[in-house]
């Protein structure tokens, strides 16, 4: 399984293994995970529920340590990369205003500089949220809340965005709209991102490359570059294209084989 290296490498996982221990013994979650993600690429990890997709993100975010293997970031300035993590629910704190929620990360990292606050204001302005910045999050719709959660993540100027099924708590229609917004925002901010999802259509419509994972203990089964633009298909029309169906069928078959053990 090889990837085309036409862009700068950004993140590499080499022979990463992870297990946890319970009363029943050792439970192996990740088994020899290897992949490379290039700078500015939107990658998606797709696999059956409970296969360990979120564990991969926790390892990349340094919330967990691998049992063995290496996670390497290619940094130009030798600084540790800043990782922004978007969770399944927005987790906006209801006692804080929208603005205070967005600046939470900057507050924690003691980086509430004029420059960073200017970025927050410009993000709010750009994504039409300035009018609600002094509201409490309870007054907002699910879609708006998730966009605010994304801006909270972007406010810390992350080098890498990790999206852990961020739309799974939304209803289908909102989900389609918000996932498109989030994709457009990440692309326009030129961020490298990894999306974890079990929704194949979501992964195809958002990602530049898809890593298909096996069921637990999880390993990378296939790497599928998504090439709509190279085939002259515009972003707005990808869901209607036959290529979309082809990608879907391919990933679906691989996941079905996974479930039936073929």
């Amino acid at each position: 399984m090889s990837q085309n290296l036409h862009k700068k490498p950004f993140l590499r996982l080499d022979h990463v293994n992870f297990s946890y221990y319970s009363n029943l013994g050792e439970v192996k979650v990740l088994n020899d995970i290897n992949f490379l993600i290039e700078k500015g690429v939107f990658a998606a990890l797709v696999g059956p529920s409970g296969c360990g997709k979120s564990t991969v993100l926790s390892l990349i975010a340094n919330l967990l340590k691998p049992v063995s293997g290496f996670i390497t970031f290619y940094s130009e300035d030798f600084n540790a990369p800043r990782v922004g993590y978007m969770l399944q629910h927005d987790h906006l704190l209801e006692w804080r205003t929208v603005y205070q929620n967005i600046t939470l990360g900057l507050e924690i990292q003691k980086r509430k500089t004029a420059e960073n606050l200017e970025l927050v204001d410009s993000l709010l302005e750009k994504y039409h949220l300035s009018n609600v910045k002094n509201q409490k999050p309870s007054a907002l719709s699910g879609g708006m809340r998730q966009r605010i959660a994304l801006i909270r993540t972007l406010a810390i100027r992350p080098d890498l965005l990790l999206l852990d099924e961020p739309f799974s708590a939304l209803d289908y229609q909102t989900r389609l709209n918000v996932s498109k917004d989030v994709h457009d925002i990440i692309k326009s901010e030129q961020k490298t991102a990894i999306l974890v999802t079990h929704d194949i259509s979501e992964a195809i419509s958002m990602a530049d490359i898809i890593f298909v994972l096996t069921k637990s203990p999880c390993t990378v089964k296939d790497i599928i570059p998504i090439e709509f633009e190279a085939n002259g298909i515009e972003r707005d029309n990808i869901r209607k294209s036959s290529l979309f169906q082809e990608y879907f069928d391919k990933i679906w078959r691989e996941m079905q084989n996974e479930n039936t053990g073929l």
Partner: protein
Amino acid sequence: MKIPDYSRKFKDKNKAATLTTGQKNFLRRQKLQKLYIFWSRILLFVVFIMLWQVSSDLGWIDRFYFSSPIAIAQLFWYDIKDMSLLNHIGITLLESGISFLLIIILSMLMATFFWFYPSLGELFEPFLIVLNSLPKSALAPLIIVWLGTGPRTIILCGISVGIFGCILNLYQSFAQTDPERLKLIETLGGTKLQAFTKVVFPGNIPTFISLSKVNIGLALVGVIIGEFLAGRRGLGYLIIYGSQVFKLDMVILSIVILCIIAMGIYGLLNLLEKKMEQSD
């Protein structure tokens, strides 16, 4: 790139709605119901007071044992004039206030400590449960032997009634903070202290208010127990002294004042809660 302008939708939501006749009728009925309950309560209270007075005047109940509203009012007026009653009320309120503040401060410190060191929380939990279940009046004689009679013993009695339950409830509430919210702080690079100050503490303010509501009453209960056993002043002392010398007017007056204090505290806390809700 086209991003929908949600803010416009939000502004529309905030427009004041005009009331229809049906809504107006509904609101009027609701208001009438509230008024009906309020005046019925007043009426019930007045009827009770009148029945008590009449029963006492006509000899249906023994005036020596049950007193009467007029006798209590007279005694109140007499005691207020020489400032002695105000002094007793002031002492009880001061001791209850100090006990309450100490319960809250100590519980907050302990629960915070246990949240930072969960294994210590686990270690102390069964002891706290036992101490919380123990009838606190059983501890009072021991406290008198240790500290003698006086305000220190009374305040300790006041603290002992509420503190163990308050620590347990607050700690359990801290421990039940959504782990995903703690993960959020972790993903933003926050420390455990920041998780506490940004998520755990502010998220538990409603629990804190409801615990305060319970514990201000419990502090009063504890202080009265303390004054029964070790007081020289205060309403608890008046109740015990009054019963010993068969001045039952004094006993009932003290109980009535305690009722008024409890009502005052309840009203004050509701007001505080409303103020906090408004500030949200």
